[in-house]
């Protein structure tokens, strides 16, 4: 029951992160065909850098940062659960010893 609740919560986070990553990717690729002129515009006055180039690189940076945050948070969460499980096992063993005595 406890694990089921964890699994459902983990799956929801996985899907939310996937959507967070996939939607900008689709938006960027769709923008290439729908609004090419907007992506061809200069990022700032006098600059050679185009909006398309900045958005593409920003997308790459966003995906990398999102992956790092997810990995850090999920690994921390798992480590916490493992520590709690071990502590619970330790308490059970102590209780068993007490009963035997």
């Amino acid at each position, binding site marked *: 029951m406890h694990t089921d609740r964890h699994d459902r919560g*983990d*799956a929801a986070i*996985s*899907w939310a*992160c*996937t959507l967070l*990553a*996939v939607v900008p*990717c*689709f938006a*960027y*690729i*769709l923008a*290439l*065909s*729908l609004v*090419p*002129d907007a*992506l*061809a515009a200069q990022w700032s006055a006098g*600059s*050679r*850098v*185009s909006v*398309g*180039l900045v958005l*593409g*690189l920003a*997308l*790459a*940076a966003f*995906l*990398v940062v*999102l*992956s*790092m945050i*997810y*990995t850090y948070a*999920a*690994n921390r969460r*798992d*480590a916490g659960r493992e520590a709690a499980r071990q502590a619970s096992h330790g308490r059970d063993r102590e209780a068993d010893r007490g009963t035997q005595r």
Partner: protein
Amino acid sequence: MTGGVNLPALAIFLLFVALTLVITGWAAKRSSTREQFYTAGGTVGGFQNGFAFAGDFLSAAAFLGVAGLYYAAGLDGLVYGLGALIGWPALLFLLADRLRRLGKYTLTDVLQQRLEPRPIRIFAGCANLVVLVFYMLSQMVGAGLLVNLLIGVDFVWSALLVGGLMTVYVVFGGMVATTWVQIIKAALLFGATLVLALLTLSHFGFDFEALLAAAVDKHPRGEAILAPGGLITSPGAAISLALTLVFGPAGLPHVLMRFFTVPNVREARRSACVATVLIGLFCFLMVVIGYGSIALLTGDPRFDAGNGLHGGGNMAALHLAHALGGSLFLGLVAAVAFATILAVVAGLTLAAAATVSHDLYSALRGRTPSEREELAISRAAALCFGALGIALSVAFQHENITFLSATAMSIAASATFPVLVLALFWKRLTTAGALAGGGVGLASAVVALVLGPSIWVAVLGNAEPIFPYQYPTILSMPLAFAAAFVVSGSATPASRVR
């Protein structure tokens, strides 16, 4: 450069081969059990596996092809560069945890946790082999052309060289040798790319604006190289390309198999994250190399033939290395490009060997082979796959490489990915639904590819394609999901229980 022997390239390449063969000899002593052969005993660390993931995924097309695309069309190169990256979040967020928890040696181990083992092993084994053959074909054809350009060896001999080496790595060294070959290759590739990008930037005083200004001034299309250049012509083509790039990697068997080489879920996540960081960094470096090749190669008669680069557009990164670092650096970058192909095909061969020996053999024979027998079958399968790769690459040497690898990604996104994601997240999926979904996805992807511009027009010579898009995923992936939903939904409750 084109057809003559480049001695530094040859020397560095021979050094790489010698080093990898020493590693294979060392790994052979550690590949005596099934677990060691398929998954390196699950002992690879997350950081190392991240490098191996990146090594598996960054093929020569990602290096030479993307640089060539920047040189020809500017910003369109970024779209394909991003293509190598945008599939990784789906892999990390959706699949890494569950694959590591449920899998043992291959993708089908995961599927059979929920579905009937025999039919699902046969289906997944066949789909995996189709994906792997097309993927390997593109790599082998690319390797043949590259070696021919670099050291003047005939295509057949270069295919024999690549095929022979990859077979040795896999037959003797299994996953241990393949992993270390990938790690060394990834480190070499990132090192070479980083140095090339830094040399390019230093030429412009580390001023990226100055680099772009020089590229715009030199390129015949001028400012247009900073804008989308007609690579994606319609919203339908855009969605199809996005589906292929985002979900294709999540169906590639040689990539998924790597999740089983780490000891636990946390290391699986860490390895996918390290791969994402490395591939993201690679994207940034390729922007500098791509625009740098326009700025420094256009109009230089040593590299620019007037109607394109000497040796074709794919030589942009190699010519840039020659322009900035002379013959020695060209040799290093060329050897790295070749090592890249060698490492990728080794990973593909191992996945194919595991598919045949672990999935198909036991399902077709109706009995599980002993460990000794399975390892022998695996090694024989690697030999056969190597021979098949050599023969097919010689037969298809004039085919378009991009088309071949796009075919593999489309089939993976249409046949393998829907079945895998439904098996992991939808409790009502039945074996019949999985087979229907995967079968419909596979068949519709192949039919739409044949009727699309890549075959119907380019190969068969018709004026107009029947299916309008180069990538069939916009049609085949929804069809696969729909078939799986309909067939599973119509199943009786009793048939769902497993």
